């Protein structure tokens, strides 16, 4: 029972957040200038044209009615038609989504195990050269802008050595009605650099988290008991320490996956990866307003929902949270 109310509470919180965001978005759009002038030409329009366009856009309606129409359109994924591609904006967005999801998933598949392992080892040997190097490296990896990192990867990985291609998706293969790069060798080759650009800051973040968790858990009594029992350090590390630090790590993986959707904007534009992020930047530069609105709304909503899911998962995973509610 407690569980269900916790779930409902968290979901209603996410819902309220989305309502707040829609109000802010609605105000934002209306404060940027009269949308009528997106439709008619300012210089040549007669007052009748303007009145006609105002009625056609529903701007003569009361403000609450306009808001309801706005929310209704957002919920139904109706953001209008792209000025450039002449496709419904939401459909266009969905066609670009697999590329972004592929990139983010591969990056997380690299970052999560690697970051956790590095953190475990460093936490085990505090103060050693390895530990100090990892700490320093993670600080710099987290403080440099992602576009700089991506550029250096291109410079070193593509231009100086010629090992990897500098952009594009490469050959794709068809699966479940979508094109995927990871199914072909050439596509995988193209994935390496952009995935690394997305993964490196996350490796640093996860490694720091898993390091501090390991230090905390290793000082607890039960670890001492395990050691006294004669268990090998490897067994202690993987069977006892790892499960105990897994909750915050899973949380951060979930949250960072949402963050990757946002950071993909930078990485995708640099590597010409045809995903949601590149679509957003291209559309901003081409003043393709419906697509910009659709993309930003989608990323923000996806992020809020992902946050809520992570919180719920947290409750399921951690016995203390589960039992206390």
């Amino acid at each position, binding site marked *: 029972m407690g569980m269900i109310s916790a779930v409902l509470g968290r979901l209603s919180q996410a819902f309220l957040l989305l309502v707040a965001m829609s109000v*802010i978005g609605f105000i*934002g759009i209306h404060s940027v200038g009269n949308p009528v002038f997106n439709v008619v030409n300012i210089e040549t329009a007669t007052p009748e044209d303007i009145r006609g366009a105002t009625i056609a856009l529903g701007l003569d309606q009361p403000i609450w009615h306009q808001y309801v129409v706005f929310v209704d359109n957002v919920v139904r994924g109706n953001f209008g038609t792209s000025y450039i591609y002449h496709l419904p904006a939401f459909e266009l967005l969905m066609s670009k989504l697999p590329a972004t999801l592929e990139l983010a998933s591969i990056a997380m598949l690299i970052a999560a195990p690697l970051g956790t392992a590095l953190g475990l080892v460093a936490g085990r040997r505090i103060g050693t050269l390895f530990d100090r190097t990892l700490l320093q490296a993670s600080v710099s990896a987290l*403080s440099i*802008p992602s*576009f700089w990192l991506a*550029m250096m990867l291109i410079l070193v990985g593509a231009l100086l050595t010629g090992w990897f291609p500098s952009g594009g998706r490469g050959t794709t293969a068809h699966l479940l009605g979508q094109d995927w790069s990871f199914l072909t060798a050439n596509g995988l080759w193209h994935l390496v650099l952009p995935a690394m650009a997305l993964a490196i800051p996350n490796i640093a973040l996860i490694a720091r988290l898993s390091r501090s968790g390991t230090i905390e858990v290793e000082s607890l009594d039960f670890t001492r008991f395990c050691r006294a029992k004669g268990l090998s350090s490897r067994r202690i590390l993987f069977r006892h320490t790892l499960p105990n630090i897994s909750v915050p790590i899973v949380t951060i993986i979930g949250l960072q996956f949402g963050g990757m959707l*946002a950071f993909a904007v930078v990485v995708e534009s*640099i590597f010409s990866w045809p995903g949601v992020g590149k679509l957003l930047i291209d559309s901003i530069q081409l003043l393709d307003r419906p697509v910009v609105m659709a993309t*930003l709304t989608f990323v*923000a909503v996806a992020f809020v929902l992902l946050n809520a899911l992570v919180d719920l998962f947290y409750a399921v995973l951690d016995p203390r949270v589960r039992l206390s509610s």
Partner: protein
Amino acid sequence: MKALILSALKKRRHGPALSAPRVLLATYILLAVAAPLIAPQNPYDPLQIYGWEASSPPGAAGGGGYLYLLGTDGLGRDIVSTILYGLRISLVVSITSSAAAALIGLTAGVSAAYFGKWVDVAIMRLVDLQLSLPTILVALIAIVTLGPGIDRIILALIIAQWATYARIARGVALSEVGKPYMDAARLMRLPTRRIIFRHLLPNSIAPAITLIPIEIGHAVALEATLSFLGLGVPIDKPSLGSAVANGFQYLLTGQYWISLFPGLALFGLIASINLVGEDVRRKLDPRNHAQ
């Protein structure tokens, strides 16, 4: 707060005053201030630029009677000068926006704590909403809504950063609101504005203020990212980020210097601000004063 700063300064006398990051940061600031005096060329002045010398490699002799130490970019602008002038823009934009964000955030956070009730709920819900989204996403949404231009960039950075300060200041102010001197101020019937700005704010800002240097570092990175994406400062007055972006297309054809050198300058700037900022935060953090 004053005592904190004084004791931090006193402590500093015993520690190493000249660490590498501090020297680097001081050099950056000096270079930015002195840019018009030491830059061989004014990259904003079309008359000083020789278009036919575009994309000259580092060390080439220029028509203006000076060497292009780090080469020229695709428009013929000297890279050294572009870096020096870009540094000014990056620093001005990030320092202005961080200062304004701190001012707005602190005032909002302290007001939320002082007024409570619906003011608190309204401000903190907005703060929660913003902090739950990645900063880059908030900045992107802001810049898309606001449009291009340096003033808009500063505004977008303020919007992206104020919430952090608000949350911290509110936490501290909540514990201050109940203290006797606040009751005294209210009993004296001081105007609300005076109570907030002269009594509550100065006593609640210490932890948040230590954040400012680090936030300036974030602002430099954020501005550079926006400019790199073509959403930042205009291309004829490049910041470090847009200087890197200008050179990016040339990077792929082997003219590495246009992008690489501004990129290295940017990296050094962000690294030195972050290291000095961490240092300042550690020194000013009351929890570290016991030692």
